C-alpha cells in the first residue's frame, strides 16, 4: 500500500495537503447537534440495534406496555417494513415517527434529525422522558453511524447462536448494554447462554447483559430497572462511541 509521499511514477510533480479528517465527521457533527437538542429537552435517547428478526419491535412493545403512564415515551422507527409495525407500537399510546423507506441499511444522523423535527411538529420534545430509536436490522452498519443517542443497546436472539458476538464484534463493542431475546425458545435449542455471555464479554468486558423473553415477560424486570436508571441520566455516554 502506498503512503503519503510514496512513489508517483509519471506526470507532473505532485503537490498535496494533509487533511486528517474523519470520514464520518459530518455525520458526527450532526449527531452532536441531535444530542444537544435531546439534552436541552431533557430526553434520554436509546438506540436499539440488532440483526433482522432479533425482536426489537417485540421488546419495544413489551417495554412500552410496562412503562405506560410512568415515562413519557416516543419512538423513532427506522426498521419499518410496513405501517403495521408502527401501528403495533402506537397501540401503546406513544407517538411513532418512521424515518426510512426500507432500503437503507442503517440510520444516520440526518435521518435522526428529521425524526426529531417530525416529533416536534406536535409540540416540544420536552414532553418526553425517553425516546427509543429502532435502528435498521443489520449487525454491521448501524454501529458506525452515531445518531446523537445517549445509549446503544444491542439485541441478540438465542436463535442466532452463541457465536454472533465473535462474528459481529463491532456491534457488541459499540453497545452499552446487550439484551438477549427469545429466552422462551431455549428448551427447543442447543444453545448455551453462559457461552454467549462469555463471548459478549470477550469483546466488551464490562457491558451489562440482560436475558429475557418479550413473549412470556421472563427477565423483563432487571431490564426495566436498568431503563429507569438510564432515564435518570446515570452513565452518560459520548456521542461517538469510544472503544
Amino acid at each position, binding site marked *: *500500500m502506498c503512503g*503519503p509521499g510514496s512513489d508517483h511514477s509519471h506526470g507532473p510533480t505532485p503537490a498535496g495537503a494533509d487533511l486528517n479528517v474523519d470520514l464520518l465527521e459530518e455525520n458526527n457533527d450532526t449527531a452532536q447537534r441531535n444530542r444537544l437538542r435531546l439534552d436541552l429537552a431533557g430526553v434520554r435517547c436509546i438506540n436499539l440495534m440488532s440483526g433482522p428478526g432479533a425482536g426489537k419491535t417485540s421488546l419495544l412493545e413489551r417495554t412500552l406496555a410496562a412503562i405506560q403512564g410512568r415515562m413519557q415515551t416516543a419512538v423513532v422507527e427506522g426498521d419499518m417494513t410496513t405501517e403495521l409495525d408502527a401501528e403495533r407500537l402506537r397501540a401503546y399510546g406513544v407517538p411513532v415517527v418512521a424515518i426510512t423507506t426500507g432500503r437503507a*441499511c442503517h440510520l444516520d444522523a440526518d435521518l435522526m434529525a428529521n425524526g426529531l423535527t417530525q416529533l416536534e411538529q406536535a409540540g416540544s420534545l420536552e414532553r418526553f422522558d425517553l425516546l427509543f430509536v429502532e435502528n435498521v436490522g443489520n449487525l*454491521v452498519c448501524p454501529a458506525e453511524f452515531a445518531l446523537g443517542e445517549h445509549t446503544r443497546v444491542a439485541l441478540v436472539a438465542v436463535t442466532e447462536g452463541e457465536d454472533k458476538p465473535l462474528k459481529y464484534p463491532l456491534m457488541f463493542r459499540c453497545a452499552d448494554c446487550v439484551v438477549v431475546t427469545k429466552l422462551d425458545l431455549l428448551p427447543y435449542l442447543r444453545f448455551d447462554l453462559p457461552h454467549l455471555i462469555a463471548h459478549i464479554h*470477550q469483546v466488551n*468486558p464490562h457491558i451489562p447483559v440482560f436475558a429475557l423473553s418479550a413473549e412470556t415477560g421472563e427477565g423483563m424486570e432487571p431490564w426495566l430497572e436498568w431503563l429507569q436508571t438510564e432515564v435518570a441520566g446515570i452513565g452518560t455516554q459520548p456521542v461517538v462511541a469510544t472503544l
Partner: protein
Amino acid sequence: MPHEVDMTRALILSLRDWHAGQSKSHPIRRVLLLVGQFTGVEPDLLRSAFARQKLDTAFLREAELVIRESPFVAHCRGCNQDYQPDIGLRYACPTCGAAMDEIRSGRELKIERVEWADDDVTG
C-alpha cells in the same frame, strides 16, 4: 445498498468542502484514506463506490483512491503487551485470556491526504 456507498458520499462531501475553500482549483489526482481493520468498512466496496461516484464530480473525475489499512491491535494491561485479535474467532489476550479491554489501532476511518498535479490548474 452497502453502507460504503454512504461512506463514499460523506467522503466526497468532505473533499468538496475542502476543495471549495482552496484558492486555486486543481483537479485532485489522489485521495489517501486510512481504514482500520476493526471498522464495518470493506476497502474493496469503498473503492468501487468511489470509482462510480467520482464520475459525478469534476474535481475528482481523475482521482485515484489509495487506501491504507491499519491493523486491529488490542492491548492487554495485565500482560502489558499488544496483540492482534483473531477477527471472527477470538478477541481475548492470547497469553492470559483476559477479555479485550483496550483497542490501540484498527478503528480509524480517516481522510489523510489529497494530492494534485501542480501544473494542471483549471480555473
